[in-house]
């Protein structure tokens, strides 16, 4: 495994990580033909099936420092990340245990460490060695023009292992990770701009039903 794998690393290093050499050769060939336009890597067309890297941006009308601070307290993340059951402290080096909702009421856990961070600018994390899921993520905070607030970009990558657990996890993350990331970021925006997450349910019972459907 490539130990230097980081969120936001290009398609080619992800391919190294999955060890799909033939596909990698095909992709790096494709890669060479690409123009280097200004679009973010998450907007690049990716070959079908290659959904390991997902990313999105939103603009939030709040100060960079406030958003950074909220995110840096990782226990806040389950408030807007639908797949997350909880995040707990897991020891030294800012280790965190992510408890992720899996199909059939199961939970999958993965421990991460902070990989790099810069106050009010970015936070990157990745799974510790020997984890069942290789995962990494990075959130960036940049000033948006004028008084538009802060542009927040989230990139996540997953590399599920083989075997039965691997299949389960793959299924979990293949539940349209692009859509999931976009939805999570939009919920973050709602929470930061309005203090709540919009729902059109009429009764609290309905809220519970909706949650069950998604969980």
């Amino acid at each position, binding site marked *: 495994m490539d130990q230097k794998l980081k969120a936001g690393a290009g398609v080619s290093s992800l391919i190294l990580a999955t060890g799909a050499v033939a596909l990698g050769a095909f992709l790096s060939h494709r890669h060479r033909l690409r123009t280097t336009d200004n679009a973010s890597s998450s907007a690049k067309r990716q070959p079908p099936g290659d959904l390991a890297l997902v990313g999105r941006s939103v603009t939030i*009308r709040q100060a960079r420092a406030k958003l950074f601070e909220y995110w840096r307290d990782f226990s806040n993340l389950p408030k807007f990340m639908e797949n997350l059951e909880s995040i707990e402290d897991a020891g030294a080096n800012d280790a965190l245990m992510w408890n992720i909702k899996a199909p059939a009421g199961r939970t999958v856990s993965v421990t991460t460490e902070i990989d790099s961070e810069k106050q009010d600018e970015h936070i990157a994390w990745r799974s510790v060695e020997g984890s069942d899921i290789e995962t990494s993520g990075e959130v960036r905070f940049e000033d948006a023009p004028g008084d538009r*607030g802060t542009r927040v970009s989230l990139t996540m990558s997953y590399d599920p292992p083989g075997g039965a657990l691997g299949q389960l996890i793959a299924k979990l993350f293949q539940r349209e990770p692009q859509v999931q990331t976009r939805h999570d970021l939009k*919920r973050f925006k709602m929470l930061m*701009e*309005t*203090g709540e*997450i*919009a729902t059109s349910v*009429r009764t609290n019972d309905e809220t519970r039903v909706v949650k069950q459907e998604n969980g």
Partner: protein
Amino acid sequence: MRALTWHGTKDVRVDTVSDPEIINSRDAIIRVTSTAICGSDLHLYDGVIPAVRPGDVLGHEFMGEVVETGANSNLEKGQRVVVPFTISCGGCFHCKMQQYSACDNSNPVEKQDLSATLYGQPMSALFGYSHLTGGYSGGQAEYVRVPFSDVGPIVVPDHLNDDQVLFLSDILPTGWMGAENADIEPDDTVAVWGCGPVGLFAIQSAIMMGASKVIAIDHYPNRLALAKKLGAEIIDFRETDVREALMEMSGGIGVDAVIDAVGMESHGFAIDNIIDVAKQKVGIGADRASALKQAIMAVRFGGKVSIPGVYGGMSDKWPLGAIMEKGLQIRSGQTHVQKYTKDLLAKIEDGTLDTTFLISHRLPLEKAAEGYKNFKEQQNEWTKVVLKPGMAG
């Protein structure tokens, strides 16, 4: 509670459904005292708006009494409020620019994908409309859950009765914004297609904004008569060639500004409309834009086109050449209601705006289905229907 629910095309019923509750801290619950049926509701009734589901509570024009408040609502129990049909957070990029009907945060995340696919970006939320716009339960009911109740509802004084202020919820600001979007200048001749409630309020607004002449187009004598009373000249499109008449009435120049207050279910037997009716019936997603096409042909070079009428999908045979070659300005949108409520309330209070002249029928909520049927089928006489949950049948 009792509420008007959608069950399918031309099938709406008053059912018993669960009472709304406070869900988020900025919510309030309103006990509805008056609610109206709108031309937009007819698009749902006719099944030409996607993503409406059986059991959905309709209605987006409503007012009433605050009966419950969330921890972060700034309303107080007992206050009388009119509620804008647009649900807006007040704090996002669009709300800060007063583009309230484009609020980023009111449409639940999981409902945003469909409209983002249709339009490029997601729509914001509206009461009692489609799941494209959030699927929020609407106001043709005894009670409504109102999100962001610290931003939308406007408290109204007791000396104004319901009928005077109810239309602040939609059609009064919609007519006003329809006229404002036409950038009316003092010597302008303005033509308005459609003398329904939206068209009538657009006519009244255009006159107040100083248009030298306003021309109203429809085919219902009674609706045309209301337009005439407001001071408009009128054209009955069943009897008159509209384009020719407008060329004459504008001294051969073409009218300076046009307002489409008809929307996607244009009437008439113009050939393009007959084809569009057929396409809409077989469900291939063509909006009927006959009135709008006529408006684009009638407006002068460099003229202004305002579209308060609602469209939802695609339209065929769009006069793109006329738009480009004539250098037209086009403005449209769901109304940014919260931007206008305060000023318009002041105009109601000082008597410069008449808001009740178009109400033809007042019915108890229980008779809402009858209201829909007649507002759809007897448009000449049924110009605006107000439902009163408390009214004796």
